[in-house]
């Protein structure tokens, strides 16, 4: 039988390393701020928000549109025999705002942005660029990690809102065609069914997922060893770890939320 101990030890090591990365990045940012400087380079931050945030809009919108459309179509057909098609707008709205929007966006961003961060930082590590930055007396975590993590942390909620709206749009189109629910009515029903708690839960989740994806991707990139093959392995590991962690935290978040508010 395979002993679970090495797996648990490795998982704990990774968690502590990611936390170490977060703490040291914050410390380096603090050092720089104490000298009256901005905590990170604005040019790199805006470059990263453009690449990881704005650049992810087409993928997030397209995938969410199709998932929203499919969700409305399948639930509508299941509800039709009971004459309950009118529940489709609220199902899509609540399902996406609270659960599928943050989760699907998290998975897409981990695959698209997390992989790019790991590959980029991994290549910089094997070509000694990261060490050169350190040797110059510039904090490499502040320079390289902080703008990337902040970009994905702050842009995730925006992407989730786009995901929610495009999914509802997809659901609305298919509902008007298949179940004779007018577009206007779909959106009115959707908005009426949403409560603040659903929206807040979705937004909080998206911030958390953004932080997880950014930190895991940067950690994996900076800990690359062994040249091009190492970069490939780290990139795969980064995507797998980020997606698994996002899904794990999503489950944990839902359990806590239900335990606290939905009794």
């Amino acid at each position: 039988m395979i002993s679970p101990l090495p797996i648990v030890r490795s998982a704990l090591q990774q968690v502590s390393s990611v936390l170490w990365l977060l703490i040291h990045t914050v410390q380096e940012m603090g050092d720089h701020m104490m000298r009256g400087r901005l905590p990170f380079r604005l040019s790199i931050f805006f470059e990263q928000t453009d690449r990881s945030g704005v650049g992810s809009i087409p993928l997030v919108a397209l995938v969410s549109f199709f998932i929203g459309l499919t969700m409305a179509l399948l639930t509508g057909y299941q509800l039709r025999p009971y004459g309950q098609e009118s529940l489709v707008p609220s199902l899509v709205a609540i399902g996406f705002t609270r659960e599928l929007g943050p989760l699907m966006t998290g998975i897409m961003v981990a695959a698209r942005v997390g992989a790019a961060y790991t590959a980029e930082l991994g290549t910089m590590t094997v070509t000694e660029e990261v060490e050169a930055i350190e040797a110059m007396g510039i904090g490499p975590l502040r320079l390289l990690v902080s703008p990337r993590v902040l970009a994905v942390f702050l842009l995730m909620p925006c992407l989730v809102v786009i995901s929610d709206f495009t999914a509802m749009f997809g659901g609305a189109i298919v509902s008007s065609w298949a179940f004779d629910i007018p577009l206007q009515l779909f959106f009115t029903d959707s908005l009426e069914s949403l409560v603040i708690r659903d929206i807040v839960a979705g937004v909080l989740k998206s911030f958390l997922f953004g932080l997880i994806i950014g930190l895991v991707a940067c950690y994996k990139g900076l800990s690359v060893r062994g040249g091009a093959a190492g970069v490939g392995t780290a990139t795969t590991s980064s995507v797998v770890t980020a997606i698994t962690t996002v899904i794990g935290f999503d489950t944990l978040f839902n359990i806590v939320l239900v335990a606290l508010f939905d009794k």
Partner: protein
Amino acid sequence: MTTNDTETVTELKNVHLAFDEKEVLQGVDLSLVPRERVVVLGQSGSGKSTLLRLILGILKPTRGSVQFKGMEVTRMGRQRLNRMRQKMGMVYQYSALISSLNVRDNLALPLEELTTNSRREIDEMVMQKLELVGMADARDKMPSELSGGMRKRVGLARGIIMDPELILYDEPSAGLDPVTSTVIDELIISLSEKIGATSIIVTHEMESAFRVATRMAMLYKGRIIADEKPEAFKQNPDPVVAQFISGDTKGPLMEGLPDENT
């Protein structure tokens, strides 16, 4: 070479370093006085580049002391370490230029991050250093557009951008043609004379070593086995040193390497 603490720029005393089970350095003693150019020789994998990383505080020794101007590097916190590194310039074997930044931005990076100079002042300093290494025309080029020799020169310019007191060179002429190699060696000499910096050069290329060195040290089996002026080094009777200089395949340096007939 004996020096007193106030005179040394950097000093390693009985430095030991082990990676996992393997002890790479086993009691290295080395000190550098201002303005000298010390060449550290040794076989590939003997721990020469590791010495530079210990001086920079990137690696910490398992035992022993590393000092910079009398301050213990191993006990420095992050902020002091960064302040110390600003007085050093590291020139990497493969230049390690930031591939996403052009030549100007590569050189300007430490100035923008660590000083309060205006953009115009930074541009002037960048141009001044680029002119010193004869690369003023490459100001707007990306590292990928430069040849190996050009990249090395830009790496040199970046190494001296903060007017360091100590410049560390990791295999500066490795992989270059003989002419470019001589150009780089001459640049090392002229830079150390012009800015008055102390230099430590790690290499295994004898011709280049004798050209630039004011002192030579040989690292073998984790220790410095010879440390003297180039003329004396050339006459050193130690069979390891003699074999390294001659490049002969027969001798103690072949121990542990595969037999030529197998």
